[in-house]
C-alpha cells in the first residue's frame, strides 16, 4: 500500500512539475534585467514598465477584451438555448443534424474553421455588402466556436438535475417560460457562468481563426503576441504571461471558494 502511495506521489510531482516549471520560468524571467531570456542579470522592473508603455500592445489587449465580452455573452445565450434543446426536446425535425452541428465546432481543426469563416465573410461582403472584416467578424466566429462549449456544460447540468421540480411547477399551473425563469434558470446558473467564463477565455486566447477573419488593420492581443514571438523571445511577453497567469489563478481561486460556499 505504501508503495502505491509513493508511486502516486511521484507521478503527481513529476506531472505538476512538467506543467508548472515552464510557466514559473516565464514569470521569473519577466523580472530579469537582461534582454536575453536565458541569462539572469539581476532583478528589474524594466520590462514591466516597457509593457505598460507599449501602446500597440495595450490597444490590442483592449480590443481582445471587448471581443471576448461580446462573444462570450452571445455564446452564453445561444449555448443556453442549444443546451436546453439538446437536454429537453428529444424529437423535432433535424434533431440529429442539430446535435452534430453543436458538437462539431469543438473538434474542428481551427485552420479549417478559420478559412471557412473567412470565405463566408468575403462572400457576404461581395453579395450583401457587409459586415466587412474586423470587430464584428471576429465576434461572430468566436461565438460560433465557443457556443458548443456552453451548450455541453448546460446540457450536462440539465441532464443531472431532478426534473420533477420542473414538472411540479408545471402541474401547479406555471407556463413554460415561468417554469424556466423560476426553476430551471436558477438551477443551471452556475453552469451558465462557467460556460461564459470558458467562452470568454477561448475568445481571449484565439489566434488562428482571428488571424483569418480579422481585417488588415485589426489586431487582437494573440495576433500581436504571435507576431512578436515569431521573431524570438521577448521579455515583454514574459510580463504579459505573468499578468495572464495571475488573473487566471485569482479567478479560479475565487470561483473555487464560491463553489464551496454553495
Amino acid at each position: 500500500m505504501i508503495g502505491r502511495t509513493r508511486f502516486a506521489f511521484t507521478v503527481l510531482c513529476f506531472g505538476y512539475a512538467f506543467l508548472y516549471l515552464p510557466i514559473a520560468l516565464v514569470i521569473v524571467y519577466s523580472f530579469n534585467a537582461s534582454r536575453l531570456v536565458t541569462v539572469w542579470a539581476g532583478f528589474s522592473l524594466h520590462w514591466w514598465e516597457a509593457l505598460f508603455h507599449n501602446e500597440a500592445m495595450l490597444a490590442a489587449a483592449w480590443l481582445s477584451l471587448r471581443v471576448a465580452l461580446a462573444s462570450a455573452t452571445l455564446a452564453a445565450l445561444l449555448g443556453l438555448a442549444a443546451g436546453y434543446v439538446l437536454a429537453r426536446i428529444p424529437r423535432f425535425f433535424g434533431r440529429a443534424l442539430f446535435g452534430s452541428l453543436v458538437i462539431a465546432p469543438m473538434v474542428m481543426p481551427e485552420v479549417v474553421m478559420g478559412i471557412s469563416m473567412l470565405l463566408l465573410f468575403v462572400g457576404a461582403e461581395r453579395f450583401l455588402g457587409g459586415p466587412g472584416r474586423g470587430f464584428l467578424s471576429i465576434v461572430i466566429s468566436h461565438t460560433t466556436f465557443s457556443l458548443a462549449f456552453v451548450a455541453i456544460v448546460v446540457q450536462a447540468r440539465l441532464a443531472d438535475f431532478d426534473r420533477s421540480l420542473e414538472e411540479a411547477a408545471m402541474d401547479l399551473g406555471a407556463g413554460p417560460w415561468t417554469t424556466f425563469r423560476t426553476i430551471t434558470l436558477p438551477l443551471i446558473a452556475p453552469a451558465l457562468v462557467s460556460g461564459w467564463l470558458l467562452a470568454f477565455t477561448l475568445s481571449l486566447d484565439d489566434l488562428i481563426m482571428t488571424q483569418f477573419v480579422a481585417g488588415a488593420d485589426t489586431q487582437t492581443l494573440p495576433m500581436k503576441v504571435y507576431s512578436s514571438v515569431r521573431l524570438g523571445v521577448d521579455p515583454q511577453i514574459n510580463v504579459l504571461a505573468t499578468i495572464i497567469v495571475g488573473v487566471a489563478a485569482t479567478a479560479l481561486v475565487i470561483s473555487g471558494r464560491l463553489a464551496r460556499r454553495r
Partner: protein
Amino acid sequence: MRSVIALPFLWLIVFFLLPFALVLAIALGTNAPDSAPPVTLGLSLANFQLLFSDDLYLAAWLSSLRIAAVSTLGCLLLGYPMAYAIARAAPERRPLLLMLVVLPFWTSFLIRIYAWMGLLSQNGILNQFLRWTGLVDQPGTILGTEWAVHIGIVYAYLPFMVLPLYATLEKLDGGLLEAAADLGAKPIAAFFTITLPLSLPGVVAGCLLVFIPAVGEFVIPDLLGGTSTLMIGKVLWDEFFTNGDWPLASAVAICLLVLLVGPIALFQRQQAKSLERAQ
C-alpha cells in the same frame, strides 16, 4: 419554444455549415492572383490532383498523422498515471489536484508554447541544465526539431487527456479491485483486467480530444518545429497567407476534414452515448 430551437440552429447553419459549402466551392475554383478575392470560380479538380501528386503534400499528411499519434501516446502515458493518482487521492484533495491540471488551460495557449521556446533553445535552460549535470557536453538543439513539437503538443493538450480519464476512473467501483485482491490477483493483474478495461471510454475520449486538434495544429509546429517539420495545418496556413492561393488552401482544408471525419464521428458517437447514460 420554436424560437429556442430555431435561434441556435440557424446560427450554426449560417455560420458553420454554409461556410463549409463555400470552402468546397472555392476548392473547385482556380487561383487568380490579380483579382480580389483571388479566386475564379469553376469546377476543376486540379487542386486536388496537385495535392495527391505532389510528394510534399503527401509527406505533410503522413507526418501530421505520425506526430499527432506519437504525441497522443505521450499524453496518454503521462496523463493516465496522473488521472489515476488523482482519482485515488483523498476525496477532499481531488478538487485542488484537478484544478491544478486545468489551471494552465485557462492561461494563454500561445504563451504556454512560448514558454518552451526559451526552455528548448540552444542556450536555453534545459541545455544549461544538461551541461551542468555533465550528461552532455555538446549542447544539442531541441528547438526546431520534431521532439520539440511532441513536447509542445503533450504539454498543451495534457488537460484534455486527464479530464475524461479522471471522469471514468473516479466512478470506478473500488469494491471490484478489493474483490480481485481477495481472490488473489496481483495489483498489476487487477489493473489490466479491471481498471484498464473499465476506463477504456475515458481513454478513447481523451485520445480523440488530443489527436484530432493535434493533426491540424499550426501554432506548435510553427513556433517549436523547424523548417523541416511538415504539418498539414502549417501547409494550409502557408498556402493561404504566404502564397495567397485560396483555392489550394481550401482543397487542403477539405482533405484535412476527410482525414478527420472518422475520428470526429467516433467522438460524436461517444459523446452522445455518454450523455444518454447520464440521462
